[in-house]
């Protein structure tokens, strides 16, 4: 049996929502980062599934790019977290509200 694209989409949606809720609920910056990775993965999954359903290889190409960008983002993001931690000794996002209006 070929699992139809809808199931993959549903799984991706579930992963995405979990990631998003985690992002909103957790205050640890690292965990928030991981939630972002979750959401990215969910989106990647939809791209792969949709590509397959539409017989289009470009879905996978897009995923490839997203992976690269995600890697770059993690590198810089973690570097920033480390830099902040060195100054503030905290990994809580709520401590970082300098840009308050």
């Amino acid at each position, binding site marked *: 049996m070929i699992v139809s694209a809808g199931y993959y989409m549903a*799984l991706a949606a579930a992963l995405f929502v*979990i990631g998003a809720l985690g992002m909103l609920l957790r205050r640890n910056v690292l965990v928030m980062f991981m939630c972002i990775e979750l959401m990215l993965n969910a989106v990647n999954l939809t791209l*792969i599934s949709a590509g397959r359903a*539409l017989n*289009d*290889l470009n879905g996978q190409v897009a995923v490839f790019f997203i992976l*690269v960008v995600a*890697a770059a983002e993690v590198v810089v993001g973690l570097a920033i977290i480390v830099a902040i931690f060195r100054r503030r000794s905290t990994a809580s996002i709520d401590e970082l509200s300098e840009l308050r209006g």
Partner: protein
Amino acid sequence: MVEGILFVLMAVTALAGAVTVVVARNPVYSAMGLLGTLFSVAVLYVAQLAHFVAAVQVIVYAGAVMTLFLFVIMFIGVDTSDDRDERLPMQRFWVGILAGVIVLLAAGITLSGNFDWVPAAVETIPEATNGTIQAIAEPLFTDWVLAFEATALLLTISAAGAIALAHFKGQRT
């Protein structure tokens, strides 16, 4: 049939991993949960013939990125910053409402039985999306070569940026 079983299995582990990421008190556990999810998703990629992407997923994500995560967690210390007092008392309430709406929406869609989420779907030709390295390389180096170059540049810059940030010796405030 194989794909069906695989899908159910992997979906369960992926969801379990994801939930672990969110609920674990200790960031190390969160990282482990994420690792599980990444592997599961990689398997699902393979199930959909995206071999190259699956490989990259394992190598880059599960390998490099997760290592980096763990490294930073160790560097910062396994700090349970979530235990400190909540500054946004209404946050959980709002998130709950949002989650409720999402669940309602999902339930509505599911109950309406409309699972046709890719409306333009056509007869699947497995060969067309067989994601071998060769197959991926062809569009990558023809149609998307500019984007490819750009991402290359992006990676270089982000590497340089990360080094610069790490070297940053600002005064402690």
